[in-house]
């Protein structure tokens, strides 16, 4: 039993002027818009819900199989299937109105114009607190190479989106680059209010029984515990390189893996693939971080952010 006057540790954090009650969010694409998971957990207890990538018009996504399991992880090539921003606003954002949590809207596009169009269509969406821009999407103009792999391109797209956006802009970085810190600096130079990292790492699995690719798309993005040490390293490198807040993700399954990310420099964390294994993972992480803070007498989570230098 806790004493009445036993002060709860302060778990709140701030990202680009937006206050979150705790640093635990969901990772885009693993949580829909929260509706399905609301049958298992109380969304009010999350720092934020990050919604599945949405584009200016509906996208059909890739052929199946879209996923496969790998040791301590999975590959996915969903292909950013989404119902388009109009339906998303009317249905998904409306659903989220009933909850006392922050909403981060993840945006995707095939061209700068498509991103800008989608961001403009979200301008007066009151329920969207932050925008998270997925720049791992195939750039149609550049022959399908992801936007997020060239620093000049990253700065340009960030600046274009910043000009159109009414909400703070978080750029979600691809780890499929040689120097992640360089990309982070480019996003900061373009005016980003924060960074989100990491997206999935490109991989491939072969089905030896069928002697072909396990995924119809041939390659897919690796996620889950298998990528956690890479994500921690990249968050750490970027935290040293920029002065904007970082949302850390990649293989978070429990409080320990979340705290590692926070100590490496993340202001908040997102739980992705682990939601598939246990629908209540996010809440376990919130509780586990609180337990850690009580055990080690940490008054504010902010004292842990980037404490490892």
């Amino acid at each position, binding site marked *: 039993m806790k004493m009445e006057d036993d002060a709860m540790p302060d778990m709140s954090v701030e990202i680009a002027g937006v206050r979150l009650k705790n640093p635990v969010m969901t990772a885009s*694409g*693993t*949580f*829909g818009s929260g509706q*399905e*998971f609301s*049958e*298992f957990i109380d969304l009010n207890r999350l720092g934020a819900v990050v919604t*599945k990538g949405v584009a200016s018009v*509906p*996208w*059909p*996504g890739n052929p*199946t*199989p*879209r*996923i*496969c*399991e790998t*040791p*301590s*992880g*999975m590959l*996915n090539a*969903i292909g950013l*299937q989404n*119902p*388009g921003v109009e*339906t998303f606003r009317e249905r998904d954002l409306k659903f989220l109105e009933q909850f006392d949590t922050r909403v981060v809207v993840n945006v995707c596009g095939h061209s700068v114009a498509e991103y800008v169009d989608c961001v403009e269509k979200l301008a007066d969406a009151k329920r969207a607190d932050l925008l998270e821009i997925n720049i791992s999407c195939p750039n149609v103009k550049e022959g399908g190479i992801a936007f997020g792999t060239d620093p000049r391109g990253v700065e340009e797209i960030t600046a274009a989106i910043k000009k159109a956006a009414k909400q703070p802009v978080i750029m979600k970085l691809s780890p499929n680059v040689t120097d992640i810190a360089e990309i982070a600096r480019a996003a900061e130079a373009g005016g980003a209010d924060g960074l989100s990292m990491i997206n999935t790492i490109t991989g491939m699995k072969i089905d030896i029984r069928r002697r072909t690719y396990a995924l119809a798309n041939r390659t897919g993005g690796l996620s*889950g*515990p298998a990528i956690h040490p890479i994500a921690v390293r990249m968050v750490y490198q970027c935290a040293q390189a920029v002065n904007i807040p970082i949302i850390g993700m990649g293989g978070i399954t429990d409080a320990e893996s979340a705290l590692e990310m926070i100590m490496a420099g993340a202001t908040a964390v997102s739980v992705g*693939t*682990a*939601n*598939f*294994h*246990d*629908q*209540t993972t996010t809440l376990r992480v919130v509780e586990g971080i609180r337990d850690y803070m009580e055990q080690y007498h940490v008054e504010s989570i902010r004292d842990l952010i980037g404490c490892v230098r």
Partner: protein
Amino acid sequence: MAEKFREQGVVLSNGQIGTGIFDLKLKTDKIAAAAKPGQFVSIYSNDKSRLLPRPISICGADSETGELRLTFRVAGKGTEEFSRLAAGEKVDLVGPLGNGFPLERAFATDDSRNCADRDGAAESVGVKGRRVFLIGGGIGIPPMVQLAKTLTERAQAAGDTAASAGSPETFQASAGSQAAGANAVGFQAAPFITSVLGFRDELFLVDDLKPYGDVVIATEDGSCGTKGNVLDAIREKNLKADVIYACGPTPMLRALKKYAEETGTECWLSLEEKMACGIGACLSCVCRSTEVDGHSKVKNKRVCTEGPVFRSTDIEL
């Protein structure tokens, strides 16, 4: 939306019923009581390096005892692990998931004439009850066991209601309001169930289906019943149905979709696809739909949520 539960199932028994085929019985708290035929559960590996759930159809569910029956074939590492589960061990389960078979279609009277016309049974079909095929190919047979049992129980319950209500007129009158769905009382007449089962060679679950109607067997090697597949058996025996429920490998489902179109038979297919969340959040498991789907806004439907059972005319295979 039907309720889903996450719970630990306790293994009651696990026995081998064929080469690489296992019959797992689990004690559940809520899942068995909520389960409908054609729904499935997500079963999780106790080896935490395997993150994703394995979807397995509900083969049996006892709402009173909470016993859940899953019958599966060892197909890889996860099912191999489940084959070694011993009584008393625990596994994480989420379910029941998916839509299940539309039971009311086995009792429907509205458009059942279309098909019945051809053999001159049009006038009597409403009273006679619909002819139902339960078609299972290989490891698609398990859900048919629970479906056969439930259809039979529903028909009995409806019969009892009709009997206690007295005259056949009352029975007819109440049947008019059954459109609301599966729970409606006043079903007109018990369906005639024929299970059509396709095997490679070795038979399993045949005895589980015998109490509910005729069982027709096809084997690829001809060791039992018709040599060939389920459609070969249907054609050889000149069987006809008003409604088909089927589960099995995609080539079988594709052939049935075509058969249903050619013969104008109502047909419901249970599909398989790789799943990550099992609850409708990740869009891993989609199939192609003929029309733009209300949820996805594209021609895609989630097998785990809008399915796994689809009307054959609503999907592309």
